């Protein structure tokens, strides 16, 4: 079992983790950034659309371009990468205040990393059809928007031949355009709330540009299909009898994101039931566990990657102070 020591261990190499690692490494703290995926960048790598970086880089970039710049920043600052590595556990603080992270990877097996400060930047996961318990069949053709995005933008696989988007989160809207641009007509986006969840500009450029109807205050009441999705039934909340059936073979769920805090919880970090993220001291980003910090979407879901990166930089400064390097 390998053992390594660093001043700072950052968990997650997405918009937040990379920005945090760039700051700590630049300050001279030995920094390791750990990510499960085979390449750093997190979900940015599959977000091939433009719209990133206007705040942070003052330039409109695609997700992969934003990721590449952040990776360069962290690398040039001297951060060490551990990709294809899953953090299984964060130990309680040792006598010297350090914590031991247990990593599993195909490349190195089990590795223990000792760190003075740990920065949580694991991001979030998508809510699913199961979370909503949408009635109907459990046939093939039902994806979270992010999974369909990955299959299309990384693997080039077409998820079906005609689609309906459930929810109106930004990923769902972006995927409505991506599906249309991939030859898969999108019949509708269906949002249960009276207002769309995603950005206004995504309503404009991802739905309105293609004449895709957005049904607000409308529920999906049934998914039908034997082997594969055959139709979706929707009904307005104020008149549940006014059901309509939309034929399609693909359903994408874009119904919200949840900070991914299973690892944090296991480490004893107290979570805020409202945000599902760790309880942190305002402006300090330290969780209830000493020496464990949190930033980006693992803390609370941000509207923009830029905001996650900026928050991560402030969090990294705070982590540096805690280990006497600021």
């Amino acid at each position, binding site marked *: 079992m390998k053992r390594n020591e660093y001043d700072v261990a950052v968990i997650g190499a997405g918009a937040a983790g990379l920005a945090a690692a760039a700051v700590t490494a630049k300050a001279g703290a030995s920094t390791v950034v750990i990510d499960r995926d085979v390449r750093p960048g997190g979900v940015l790598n599959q977000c091939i659309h433009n719209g990133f970086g206007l705040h942070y880089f003052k330039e409109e970039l695609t997700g992969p371009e934003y990721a590449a710049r952040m990776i360069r920043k962290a690398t040039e600052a001297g951060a060490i990468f551990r990709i294809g590595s*899953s953090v299984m556990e964060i130990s309680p603080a040792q006598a010297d205040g350090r914590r031991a992270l247990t990593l599993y*990877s*195909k490349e190195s097996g089990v590795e223990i990393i000792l760190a003075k400060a740990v920065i949580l930047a694991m991001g979030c996961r998508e809510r699913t059809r199961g*979370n909503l318990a949408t009635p109907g069949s459990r046939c093939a053709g039902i994806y979270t928007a*992010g999974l369909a995005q990955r299959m299309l933008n990384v693997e080039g696989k077409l998820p079906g031949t005609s689609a309906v988007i459930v929810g109106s989160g930004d990923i769902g809207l972006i995927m409505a355009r991506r599906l249309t641009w991939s030859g898969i007509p999108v019949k509708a986006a269906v949002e249960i709330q009276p207002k769309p969840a995603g950005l206004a500009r995504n309503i404009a450029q991802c739905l309105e540009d293609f004449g895709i109807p957005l049904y607000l205050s409308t529920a999906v009441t049934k998914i039908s299909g034997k082997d594969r999705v055959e139709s979706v039934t929707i009904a307005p909340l104020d008149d549940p009898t006014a059901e309509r059936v939309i034929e399609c073979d693909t359903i994408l769920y874009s119904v919200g994101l949840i900070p991914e805090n*299973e690892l944090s919880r296991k480490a004893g970090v107290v979570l805020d039931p409202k945000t599902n993220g760790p309880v942190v001291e305002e402006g300090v980003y330290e969780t209830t566990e000493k020496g464990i910090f949190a930033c980006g979407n693992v803390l609370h879901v941000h509207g923009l990657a830029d905001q996650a990166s900026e928050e991560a930089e402030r969090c990294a400064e705070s982590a540096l102070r805690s280990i006497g390097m600021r």
Partner: protein
Amino acid sequence: MYDVCIIGAGATGAAAAYWLARKNVQVVLADKEADASFGVSKANSGIVHGGFHYSVSKTLKGKLELEGNRMFPAMAKELGFPYNQCGIIVVAYSEDQLEEVRKLYNQGIENGVEGIEFCSKERMYELEPKLCEGCLGGVFAPQGGVVEPYAYVFSLVEDAERNGVVFERNFEVVSAEYQDNVWKMKSASGKELSAKYVINAAGLYSDKVSAIFGGEEFEILARKGEEYLLDRLSPAYPTRVVFPVPTHTSKGVLVIPTAGGTTMVGPTAHIVPDKDDTDTTAPDREEIFELAQYMVKGVSKRDLIAAFAGLRPALAGGDFMIKISDKAPAFIQASGIQSPGLTASPAVGKLLVSLLEKAGLKMDDKKDIAPVPPKRRLREMSAEEVDELYQKDPAWTNIICRCEKISEAEIVDAVRHGHVTLDAVKLHTRAGMGRCQGGFCSAKIWAIISRETGIPVEELTKRGKKSNFFNGSIADVAFKGDSYETK
């Protein structure tokens, strides 16, 4: 030609295959679905019942339930499927219910159930601190428990395969002829099988199969039950399986600490006309949560991660029909095996072997039974153990499913056991069964199945037939001029 063809690879057929694999006979297990346990056995509560709901002397299912219950601990130990003998409690919330609970207890005593207890209110809260207020007492059956039903069925089938049984997937029997003391069967896709004896363990479709073979005429009704699965972090996870007092049609809505570590609430019970109708519905969802929240603290829709429905194959009269057919030759019926069919299955399998002998099939015990390879699960291992496995196979430290902590090695193991659909890999390993419901791991699993089998990702399915995931590659998309219509 085989000595025996078992039709249906659910709990009943798989258990028969397991026991027959211990005899020196040639056996084929055929199922119309893409894998074992894809019918009734996939979607049920996973309860090993306690032997007190039915009379052992008056019903066949009561007798077989108790026998099966007693066989489970040894089988779990031998085959390594997830099983937890956590005990069952039935909770009474009124004086009337207390009376009913007393009857269950008395039936348990009459049946000879070991350790069954009639409990005071205090004892009930001691047994299950998560019970809601107002419990007046109940029954405790310590021999009851939970099992991962699909893992159980897979382990039976895999053990049978190791010991010579042939498993034919996607074999839907459409015709059968008895000639020269041999059954010749044809599948929907034109494949043929022949066997001297046939066991009808076709679950919901055992009526149809019986008709194909000219056996007894009967009708199987599908009684649907919906189940709702909660995150493994749900505070509701009870210590015991919590039952309400049963009604005359079902055992009611339970709160179940599943063998996989999640909490499950359900099932409902409604007869449905369509045997393929496994839709979940909003009214049942609301009913289940209301009833479950009445019994156990901390049950919340906020923790929902999945919903599904299963169908119980019910025969008029409600009991199992397990017998040598009076009408069709060399044909054994194992029909109407609804709840407690899973619990009873080890005993049902044994009974089917003895019926084959009675029907004239001669068999002796096999001398050598292939040992069960150790079943290793990453989530149950320490870092030291994992590192040791890594030295032999680096796939052990490649985490594929983060929610349930499943390694690449476990996925590969499932695929190499012939499980090539996403659902089968999920049921075999638990990958995709956790809180993200496959959002993160599906892409990785498709890649592994494709790599291991050579099947292109485009041809992979969720559960066989036309349940494909993908429709070609973006490399082949071309639009007609300036429109978004494709060529």
